[in-house]
């Protein structure tokens, strides 16, 4: 029961996500050389407003996109309907957002504003 | 099952059938009926998905200027019908077609093929003196019926789908119609639908011939019901054969289906069993002669050959270039390919095939019948075509008169009320329909084949008195044998075998009328060809046959044609009008 609005949000958030995914992948391919470590990640991201924005927007877009996506699957394969379906979508969306926000916060500003 | 089990249902306007006639009647009735009038449409199949209007290929005849006029269309129709048509009906057909085609394009939303300048494209079928046939590729009927069907589905009329009408039930004094007895085919239950006005548009359908084109649901039910209800039928000997039906063997329903006229028009050649072209032996227009002439030519060749292994003749297109044929006749080529034939490069076996029924119920120009409350339009109504229907006049006829029936009913219904049925007739019709359920079950199909062979051999493309008399005996014996064939009654829901039985019942009843009317006409006109009377007779003395049931027996009489608009030898065209406007091919 994807109406036009949900459809548009999903497509637009997908388009928004795409450059971030590419960026993220590029960083991963670059970063993974020589193995990953917490320090390495944090060194890059701690205290950076840019990285905060990068991952922040990424998380918001993906939460919207993923929630609407799972809604379709819940409807078609899970048989959810009506309020249960909408509730499920919001739960997924807000859940992803919360977890994502926490993660972004963790890798950027959780130790205070750095250099 | 008992008579008391019949469910009763009331409506104001009841329409039987959803071909061009039925669907147009529904739309027009809605436009003219008083506010709140209930309209019900009942049909043997699904709305818009049965009947022959959907199968129309070539197109729709209408005079739209460019030199062509209603007068010219009318003269072609009269000439084509060999002076037998009811002239007022033929005139109304030609005149109203102009309005109906605009209605189809503008209100119903059909799209017909255009010329490069954006105007409607028109072509000429055989027998026409102007490029007059409007079409949508070679699938004109699909376009017309799909669009009409949408309109009707969206209009909110009451739908009784897969409801088969089995009997017209009059009032006690049998002056007026009270309602129609039906079988709800999905459940096998009976339903009497009372209505103030009923339009019958069940579309005839000469499917009692071994080779036939109409859809499987058409089995002359309407005419059989009308006959039993005491109505007068006219022109019942007039069965049109299409020259090129696909011959794909005994065991496929594909056999008999039409290979379109356009193939011959484009230069397709007919080849006999000896590999020779033969049509020029019969007519100097060769393969491009009219349907009746080509049908007889093919039939004669088949008789010469008389080989049960290879009955038909062949149509060959390959000389026009297989790729060209594939492009121009994609639909036909694909259809042939599905049954294993290569129309583009090879040759395909064909036979004449029963296509259209010119005969039908006698009506006035407003589709009213002798029975108050009953209206008939489309192929069920007789008169507009006389002895032969021009290609393209069939769908024009059903849509024009269907609309007229809707308008007429919409107006008449205001002053009418529901009538009480004659319960005795109701009981008799009910008993008639459940008759086979109490007999020992047996196969229906062999009898149907038997009837089809008899009609093909003895009451077919070429007829003689002796043949038709033999045919009558054959029909009677099938008819009798049918009464000994029962149908298993364990489950009557969607029981096609029961309906096969009822179909054959209608076909037997009407076959008898066809043969009797054929015997009564001792000359050859249009579709009716008597080897023992090959001459057409004097046009001035033209008469048409009328058949009625009198004391349980079919009686046929002749009635003189009233030349209300034009007399033989005269024309309504202005002086000096050219013979034909069609450019020589």
């Amino acid at each position: 029961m994807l109406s036009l609005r949900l459809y548009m949000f999903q497509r637009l958030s997908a388009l928004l996500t795409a450059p971030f995914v590419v960026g993220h992948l590029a960083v991963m391919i670059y970063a993974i050389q020589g193995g990953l470590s917490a320090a390495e990640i944090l060194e890059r991201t701690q205290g950076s407003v840019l990285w905060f924005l990068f991952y922040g927007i990424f998380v918001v877009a993906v939460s919207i996109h993923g929630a609407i996506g799972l809604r379709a699957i819940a409807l078609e394969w899970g048989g959810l309907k009506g309020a249960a379906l909408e509730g499920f979508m919001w739960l997924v969306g807000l859940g992803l957002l919360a977890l994502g926000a926490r993660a972004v916060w963790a890798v950027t500003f959780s130790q205070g504003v750095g250099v | 099952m008992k008579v008391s089990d019949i469910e009763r249902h009331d409506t104001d306007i009841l329409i039987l059938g959803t071909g061009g006639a039925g669907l147009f009647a529904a739309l027009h009735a809605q436009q003219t009926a008083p506010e709140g009038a209930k309209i019900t449409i009942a049909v043997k199949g699904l709305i818009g998905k049965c009947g022959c209007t959907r199968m129309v290929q070539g197109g729709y005849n209408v005079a739209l200027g460019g030199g062509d006029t209603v007068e010219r269309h009318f003269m072609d129709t009269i000439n084509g019908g060999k002076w037998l048509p009811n002239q007022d009906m033929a005139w109304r057909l030609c005149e109203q077609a102009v309005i109906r085609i605009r209605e189809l394009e503008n209100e119903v939303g059909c799209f017909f093929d255009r010329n490069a300048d954006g105007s409607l494209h028109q072509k000429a079928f055989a027998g026409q003196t102007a490029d007059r046939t409007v079409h949508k590729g070679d699938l004109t009927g699909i376009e017309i019926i799909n669009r009409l069907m949408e309109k009707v589905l969206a209009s909110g009329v009451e739908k009784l789908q897969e409801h088969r009408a089995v009997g017209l039930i009059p009032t006690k004094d049998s002056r007026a119609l009270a309602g129609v007895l039906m079988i709800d085919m999905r459940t096998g239950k009976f339903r009497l639908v009372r209505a103030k006005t009923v339009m019958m548009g069940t579309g005839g359908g000469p499917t009692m011939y071994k080779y036939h084109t109409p859809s499987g649901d058409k089995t002359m039910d309407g005419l059989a019901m009308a006959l039993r209800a005491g109505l007068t039928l006219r022109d019942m000997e007039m069965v049109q054969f299409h020259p090129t039906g696909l011959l794909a063997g005994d065991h496929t329903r594909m056999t008999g289906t039409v290979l379109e006229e356009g193939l011959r028009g484009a230069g397709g050649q007919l080849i006999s069993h000896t590999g020779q072209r033969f049509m020029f032996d019969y007519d100097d227009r060769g393969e491009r002669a009219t349907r009746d002439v080509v049908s007889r030519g093919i039939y004669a060749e088949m008789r010469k050959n008389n080989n049960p292994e290879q009955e038909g003749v062949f149509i060959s297109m390959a000389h026009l270039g297989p790729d060209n044929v594939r492009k121009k006749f994609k639909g036909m080529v694909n259809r042939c390919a599905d049954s294993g034939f290569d129309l583009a490069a090879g040759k395909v076996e064909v036979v004449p095939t029963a296509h259209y029924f010119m005969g039908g119920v006698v009506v006035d120009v407003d589709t009213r019948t002798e029975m108050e409350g009953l209206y008939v339009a489309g192929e069920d109504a007789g008169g507009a075509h006389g002895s032969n229907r021009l290609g393209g006049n069939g769908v024009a006829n059903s849509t024009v008169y269907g609309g007229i029936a809707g308008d007429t009913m919409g107006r008449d219904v205001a002053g009418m009320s529901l009538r009480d049925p004659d319960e005795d007739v109701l009981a008799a019709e009910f008993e008639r329909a459940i008759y086979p359920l109490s007999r020992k079950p047996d196969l229906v199909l062999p009898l149907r084949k038997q009837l089809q062979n008899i009609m093909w051999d003895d009451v077919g493309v070429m007829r003689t008195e002796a043949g038709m008399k033999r045919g009558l005996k054959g029909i009677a014996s099938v008819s009798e044998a049918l009464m000994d064939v029962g149908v298993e009654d364990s489950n009557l829901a969607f029981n096609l075998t029961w309906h096969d039985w009822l179909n054959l019942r209608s076909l037997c009843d009407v076959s008898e009328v066809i043969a009797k009317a054929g015997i009564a006409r001792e000359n050859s006109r249009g579709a009716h060809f008597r080897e023992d009377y090959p001459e057409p007779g004097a046009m001035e003395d033209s008469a048409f046959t009328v058949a009625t049931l009198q004391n349980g027996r079919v009686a046929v009489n002749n009635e003189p044609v009233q030349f209300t608009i034009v007399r033989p030898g005269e024309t309504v065209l202005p002086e000096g009008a050219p013979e034909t406007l069609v450019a020589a091919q």
Partner: protein
Amino acid sequence: MKAAKGITSRAHPLWLAYILHRLSGLALALFLPLHFWVLAMAMTDPVRLDGFLHLTEAAAVKIAEFGLVFLLAIHMFGGLRLIAMEWLPWSAPQKTLAAGATAGSFCIAILFFMKAI
């Protein structure tokens, strides 16, 4: 899954593209919370995060990650393909696009894999 009943001949490129897109989206959506949870350890338990990150050395985990990147790539290309066909006024070379999307995803994933080794 009612969808599995009835029709049996689904194996045509566009249907495969659809199911791949759906399964990859589903897998991504399931993986994402895990991913977030692990990253959030940066805040709560940096040592354990390192422990996890070291795991990336193990072959099994490598392959899992390869799969993940592959999923992400395949889903992205598949999704862009869909949006392109829906919003851009062309649609004929659908199958080519579907194949192209899969091929592109493979390239990225393999690149990732090579670097990872």
